[in-house]
């Protein structure tokens, strides 16, 4: 059974069809990278996977359960699916530690002491243990994004979604974030990510999905897909990002 099973999903905003019969499987431990032009529906698809957006047709199954914005136990589901955005979205009024432990302390009934240990643990995984008491405004963009990843990790997710998490960063800060994601991939985390970092997609992804106008136009292992694009759309896309 695939961890994520997207079956013929469609979604419209008003009369604009943003997802148009998308089907996609993500197996446990796989790294699936979604690429495609701006407006092709990548973010929307990602947001549908953790029920941030309602779908109009088709079905999304995660761990065998149908994902809906009104699904039962939506909050427990969200804890198992981490999502990281381009804009970090850390809570500015909380220290790094409290950003990470807010949800676990409120909803997983751990103590503040256990929370600190948990925060240290996930911060070590993103190389920021020394920033545990800093506030977001005192961190660089790359550091903030790594804290955002650590905050997801603290929930013990079974699946991680990344939406262009390096796009807002200065070029010299991109590497540190990608490295954290590579480590997670090596440790077997299942990940679906949207990225414009073609080098990263090529080396880390188990599968690349090329979206065009709300559809999956091509998918396959990176080496194959980049070497032999079958559609003119992918060919011109690859040419444009080189």
């Amino acid at each position, binding site marked *: 059974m695939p961890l994520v099973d997207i079956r013929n999903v469609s979604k419209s905003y008003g009369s604009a069809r943003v997802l148009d019969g998308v089907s996609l499987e993500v197996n446990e431990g796989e790294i699936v990278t979604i690429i495609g032009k701006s407006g092709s529906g990548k973010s929307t698809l990602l947001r549908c996977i953790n029920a941030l957006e309602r779908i109009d047709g088709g079905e999304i199954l995660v761990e065998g359960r149908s994902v809906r914005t009104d699904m039962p136990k939506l*909050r427990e589901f*969200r804890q198992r699916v981490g999502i990281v955005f381009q804009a970090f979205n850390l*809570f500015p*009024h909380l220290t790094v530690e409290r950003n990470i432990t807010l949800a676990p302390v409120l909803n997983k009934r751990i103590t503040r002491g256990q929370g600190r240990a948990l925060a240290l643990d996930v911060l070590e995984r993103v190389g920021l243990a020394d920033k545990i008491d800093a506030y977001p405004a*005192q961190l660089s963009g790359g550091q903030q994004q790594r804290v955002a990843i650590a905050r997801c990790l603290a929930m013990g997710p079974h699946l991680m979604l990344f939406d262009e998490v390096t796009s807002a960063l200065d070029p010299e800060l991109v590497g540190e974030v990608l490295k954290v994601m590579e480590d997670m991939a090596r440790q077997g985390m299942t990940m679906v990510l949207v990225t414009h970092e073609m080098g990263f997609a090529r080396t880390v992804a188990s599968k690349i999905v090329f979206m065009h106008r709300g559809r999956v136009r091509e998918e396959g292992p990176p080496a194959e897909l980049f070497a032999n694009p079958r559609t003119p759309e992918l060919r011109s896309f690859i040419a444009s990002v080189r």
Partner: protein
Amino acid sequence: MQSLNFQQIWRYQDHLIDGTLHTLLLTLAAALIGTAIGLAGAAAVRSGPRPVRWTIRGYIELIRNTPSLIQLFIVFFVLPNFGLRLNSFEAAAIALGLYFGAYSIEIIRAGLDSIPGSQMEAGQCLGLTRWQVFRHVVLPPALRNVYPAFTGQFVLLLLGTSLASQISAEELFHAGGFIESRTYRSFEVYAVICGIYFALVMAFKLLFAAVGRLAFRWPVGR
């Protein structure tokens, strides 16, 4: 012109102290009522059902576009006809609380609106409930953004409590009237009263600055 004579007024210092305490009590009671209204009202205006939102809007417009003195009279003289018997202090606390509440809703709502939706989304994605998102994600930075406006409104409330003298609530301004009627020293009396109001406002400003520094310690974004 008579020479100034504060001597006589100090003989009524008990009245002054009592009036000051009642002004403080009245201010705090009205602020408490008003802040509760402000928080609940702002949350409801943003995400309540339409009839609730309209009712709150109506309340805000009514309060902000009619004289506070008349609001006070209505609470004190009209509500008893409907079986709600209040002493002058309670009536003043409620009327001023309703007045402060109307402004608080607008101020707090502006604060809530200043927090981007992406913050709420981030909270949701961590599995927080709507209440937890409101309380822990949205509210603290929202309050920081409107803290100066809110404390400014508090000062206006404090000064506005003098209206309560008109229904014989025994606050500071009322004490002033009493002392004047006994001493006929209007200038001295009102100079002293004014000085006390001024000192109270200054004390609150210092207090608010200290509280603000403690409560809003996080550095703001770059």
